[in-house]
């Protein structure tokens, strides 16, 4: 049976059903079911999950100035981004403006997190969808050295001896039975296309990235006072500046600024000499694998971030672009207002919640979380052991956020499509340059690899922006401004009886918003709409499928029982979900259990 979705997909549920079922506690349970036809092509995709919307539960009645510390604990990676979004929401609600230095420092921290997350995602979570570390053991170190010098002549670590050492280390590690990091791969699947030398080069950079990421986070220790879990402050940043100070506890002095500067340079160098060349080199072997574009060519949303000046979030002042593209019309970029009750709305027709009436959308300020867990008439299994979902009914714990009724993709590719469509100079130059190097048309951008490439380009761009804000910070300090916080409205007696606000950021994996209502100095309601809620959204009342679902459509699977292609595409979104997958045969019998990294 086939159905046509309003956002342009033909769904056919007649073929074999494959269930990929990951489980987690923290960010909820994500599961994916697809139908494949006789040729192994995906003809229907169903993404489901719990993003247990528990924050209102925890934050209700608490001090708004503490909300960042709670939101920092939602997740182990977006810690800083949630904290930043939270302090912005409170500042917006209470009309608190932050000083110039605080804006520069927050931007440096946010950009730093962006770079850290992109590099860690690529090398430690996503690369293994393309790179086979076991195959790297068969590589010739001399040929690997030649490959490295051809791919990135400026990278100093390229001698045959260096690659031989890494290969020996890897061999020892694999032989010791500690394959932990690389286990559960489908290492003999024909979907892996790299020669052993490229596998060894990429695996070597996996190790180099591990060393770099430890350096990168030191920026958070310096500006956030500590890491893990850096400190944040409503009204600014909690670090005093004392450039003349020598070893003053906690204060930012020249020695610390010099350390930040050297880390920024290391990021720029790694992006240019390692990350981007690797994406070009690996992508070159997969140029014909252009699946996974999904909504990226049709509907993209970005809130924008990295304001040039404090307290000014107007679109033209943001270095990461803001805008919405709908109906595949790249000639028109709409502005986005998170306060407008008609723009961002969440629907629950296919989610396990109820608003009391069908087809209703609620703006996050008016968000309601009333669970209603029921399986559709065509579901198989029981409530505690679902074998097959009925996507015609309620089927996910994720609500369906929509922008003016449209299902949207968020994340690095969405930001780059919006930026490209707006003629953002840096983004356009980067994208055109990459496509030229790889001899690919613009349409290649709308793919799984396009998403992966956009992340690498963004990491490079963020490195330059980090330097810009560092220079700005130093210049401002030189001009005699050492202010880092505005505490005028710190005391709740200065607040209005009731207030509401919104904080927005571009988290590494996409547009993030926190909506807060404050009453009598306490939190009355708090709602987060996180990037994975947008991308992992279920269908809505009109039948529009979400970004994950759309991205899987029409993909050809080499071996349906080994879902490499599904994982590749889902991973390319950098979803914040834990995965342990069970692949089931059509009669519901479990075939394989794998963990997804």
């Amino acid at each position: 049976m086939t159905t046509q979705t309003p956002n342009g997909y033909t769904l056919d549920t007649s073929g074999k059903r494959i269930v990929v079922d990951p489980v987690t506690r923290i960010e909820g349970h994500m599961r994916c079911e697809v139908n494949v036809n006789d040729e192994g092509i995906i003809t229907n995709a169903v993404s489901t999950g719990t993003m247990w919307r528990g924050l209102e539960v925890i934050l209700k009645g608490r001090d708004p100035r503490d909300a960042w510390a709670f939101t920092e604990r939602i997740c182990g990676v977006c810690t800083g981004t949630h904290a930043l979004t939270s302090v912005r929401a409170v500042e917006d609600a209470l009309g608190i403006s932050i000083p110039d230095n605080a804006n520069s420092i927050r931007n440096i921290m946010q950009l730093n997190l962006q770079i850290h997350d992109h590099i860690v995602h690529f090398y430690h979570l996503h690369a293994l969808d393309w790179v086979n570390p076991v195959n790297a053991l068969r590589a010739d170190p001399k040929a690997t050295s030649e490959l490295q010098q051809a791919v990135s002549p400026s990278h100093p670590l390229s001698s045959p001896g260096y690659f031989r050492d890494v290969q020996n280390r890897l061999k020892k590690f694999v032989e010791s039975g500690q394959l932990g990091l690389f286990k559960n791969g489908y290492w003999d699947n024909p979907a892996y296309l790299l020669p052993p030398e490229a596998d060894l080069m990429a695996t070597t950079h996996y190790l180099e990235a591990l060393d770099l990421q430890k350096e990168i986070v030191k920026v958070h220790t310096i500006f956030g006072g500590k890491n893990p879990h850096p400190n944040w402050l409503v009204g600014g940043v909690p670090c005093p500046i004392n450039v003349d100070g020598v070893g003053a506890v906690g204060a930012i002095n020249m020695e610390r600024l010099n350390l930040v500067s050297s880390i920024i340079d290391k990021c720029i160098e790694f992006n240019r000499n390692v990350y981007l060349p690797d994406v070009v080199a690996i992508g070159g072997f997969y140029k014909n694998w252009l699946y996974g574009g999904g909504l990226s060519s049709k509907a993209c949303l970005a809130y924008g971030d990295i304001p040039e000046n404090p307290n000014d979030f107007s679109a033209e002042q943001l270095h990461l672009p803001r805008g919405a593209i709908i109906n595949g019309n790249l000639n028109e970029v709409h502005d986005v207002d998170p306060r407008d009750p008609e723009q961002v709305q969440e629907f629950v027709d296919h989610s396990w919640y109820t608003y009391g009436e069908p087809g209703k959308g609620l703006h996050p300020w008016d968000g309601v979380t009333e669970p209603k867990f029921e399986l559709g008439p065509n579901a198989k299994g029981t409530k505690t052991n679902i074998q097959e979902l009925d996507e015609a009914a309620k089927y996910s714990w994720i609500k369906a956020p929509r922008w003016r009724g449209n299902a949207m993709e968020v994340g690095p590719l969405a930001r780059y499509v919006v930026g490209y469509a707006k003629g953002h100079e840096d983004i356009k130059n980067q994208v055109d340059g990459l496509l030229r190097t790889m001899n690919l048309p613009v349409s290649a951008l709308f793919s799984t690899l396009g998403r992966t490439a956009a992340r690498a380009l963004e990491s490079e761009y963020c490195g330059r922006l980090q330097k810009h804000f560092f220079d700005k910070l130093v210049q401002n300090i030189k001009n005699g401004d050492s202010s880092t916080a505005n505490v005028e409205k710190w005391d709740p007696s200065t607040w209005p009886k009731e207030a509401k606000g919104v904080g927005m950021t571009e988290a590494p994996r996409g547009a993030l918003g926190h909506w807060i209502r404050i009453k009598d100095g306490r939190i009355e309601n708090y709602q987060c709409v996180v990037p994975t809620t947008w991308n992992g959204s279920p269908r809505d009342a009109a039948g529009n499928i979400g970004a994950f679902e759309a991205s899987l459509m029409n993909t050809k699977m080499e071996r349906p029982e080994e879902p490499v292609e599904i994982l590749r595409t889902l991973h390319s979104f950098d979803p914040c979900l834990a995965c342990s997958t069970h692949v089931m045969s059509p009669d519901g019998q479990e075939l394989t259990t794998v963990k997804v990294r």
Partner: protein
Amino acid sequence: MPASQPEKVLILGIGNVLWADEGFGVRCVETMAQSHALPEDVRIMDGGTQGLYLLPFLEETDALLVFDAIDFGLEPGTLRVLRDDEVPAFMGAKKMSLHQTGFQDVLATAALLGRAPERLTLIGCQPVELEDYGGGLRPAVAAQIAPAIDYAVAELTHWGFPIVAGSTETGDLADSSIRRDAYEGGRPAAHEACRTGDERFFPTSAKEPA
């Protein structure tokens, strides 16, 4: 087992304080810093669920002592101490999310880089309840904080660091707003904030703290 005594020790509490007994490890380090005076070469830290972010701290220590809530399949509230090679197998069960790289993977990564701590001791507690988002420690688990710290003191003494009562000044613990008293004391009542959800994740027993 290395012959020499460690020069540097890291005491790490890991887990997510937002998931009831999952917060055991973090609460242990919080309490220990208030009750014991640790010498300079013993660092105590709230590791949360930070995964790879913890790698640099692991690399710079000779001995690592971890407090954590672990599923040993034992009676809830039971403590267990594991050492060195016994540890990773148990920690694998706790992988929390794609990004919260399991602590097992962090240990494996340190080993791959050839910079894993020479000694490793895990003091784990079998949780009573994990599926209560926003909840605090259940009494049976909270009661194990003091005995867990006693084990830690014995281990540190064995490593050549006799520990005395007192307190430790450190910036490596949780913000005061989510320390145990503030966090558990400030929780809204069930009738104010809905605590139910997916039956698979919110069993009936979790709706009201025991």
